[in-house]
């Protein structure tokens, strides 16, 4: 229809994906609309803002913090978040936690959304357990030897989320303001939460 223009061959993976979708539609198992809707949910409704809200709540409410550390799934449910088998591990002045999945790429998707590509990459999966301090330095997080590094390799159906330390200089901030400081990377454990001045600067 568009004259003599040449059609570029589709990359094979685009064709394979379309072939599978086409067959599954034909079998009556999926519809394009259902697929679109599920993808949209993960793009718009589920992301690190959910985990950040839990972290900010724990910083402000000591009783919630205790419940969050005792049973992450139940504490998530209090905020209307469905996150079964969630274990929350707390950073302290003496302990820094880091989450990885060496065998595949398990990730607390219900509270952080889809993982970044680096989390799923061979260098991260390979190195997090053997040289976590070196890895953290590459992320800009340098820890003194006195701070113990605790790596959590999520090899089961349990998912780990790091409760980062609340930075100094955040007294008087609201839950929303605190949540805005909490990054995905801090909840994976490759970064610390920066105080607002540091964020602005």
């Amino acid at each position: 229809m568009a004259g003599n223009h040449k059609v570029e061959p589709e990359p094979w993976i685009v064709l394979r994906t379309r072939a599978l979708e086409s067959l599954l539609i034909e079998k009556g198992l999926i519809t394009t609309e259902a697929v679109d809707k599920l993808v949209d949910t993960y793009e718009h409704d589920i992301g690190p803002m959910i985990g950040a809200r839990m972290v900010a709540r724990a910083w402000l409410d000591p009783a919630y913090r205790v419940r969050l550390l005792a049973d992450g799934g139940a504490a998530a449910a209090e905020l209307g978040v469905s996150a079964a088998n969630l274990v929350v591990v707390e950073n302290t002045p003496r302990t820094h936690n880091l989450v990885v999945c060496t065998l595949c790429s398990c990730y607390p998707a219900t509270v952080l959304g889809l993982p970044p590509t680096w989390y799923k990459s061979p260098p991260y999966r390979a190195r997090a357990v053997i040289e976590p301090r070196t890895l953290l330095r590459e992320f800009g997080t340098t820890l003194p030897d006195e701070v113990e590094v605790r790596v959590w390799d999520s090899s089961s159906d349990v998912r780990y989320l790091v409760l980062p330390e609340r930075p100094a200089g955040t007294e008087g901030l609201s839950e929303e303001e605190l949540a805005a400081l909490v990054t995905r990377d801090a909840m994976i454990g490759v970064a610390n939460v920066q105080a607002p001045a540091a964020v602005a600067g």
Partner: protein
Amino acid sequence: MNGVHDMGGMQGFGPVVIEQDEPLYHADWERRVVGMRRALGPYRIYNVDESRKEIERMPPARYLSASYYERWLYSMEANLVAKGVLTRAEIDARVASLERDPSQPLPAPGDAATAAAALAQLPATPEPVPAPAQRFRPGDRVQAHNVHPAGHTRLARYVRGRCGTVERVLGVFPLPDAYTQGQGVQPQTVYAVAFDARELWGDSAEPNSRVSIDLWESYLEPAGTAATGE
């Protein structure tokens, strides 16, 4: 399986490459793969253990060169074929057809009878056997078995034969090794077991660090009792 997917402690991959302001997907086909997998979820055609098993069976060179969602697509095809929902010939024919005419529209959705026929060969979900009583408590010293099963396992290579301490009791979950070998649903207690970095990496260990990994009860013995080469 001592596969290339079991990456903990491997060396030579270089620095972690961090993409700033990374989009959720790098291409539309990735969105379609994620959406299809979620859309198929309620049919319980294959579970997460079976998904991982097929990913681990990718030829190693292909595994390493594939993107994350390409591995999902590979596993989805393999599992749909294994469960009789699709045939390899059907997939190949549809790919060939799209190669000839990439612009062809998607087909009209099949009806309920077609869907039922596609799912007719699914095996019945096995009944879980009773879980054995919990064997370990937090603080117990344990040793991971030194075993090298050819099938799917979540017992990562870098902790096999090593001694650690039970950190947390995580709950009762089906043993992936058994399920993926057709041995049914065998629930057992899963523990977060903490290993000192020196126990894992010897003199190469970084200072003051521990690695915890989730291990099923049958991966463990009380420390000092595990037979090597069991």
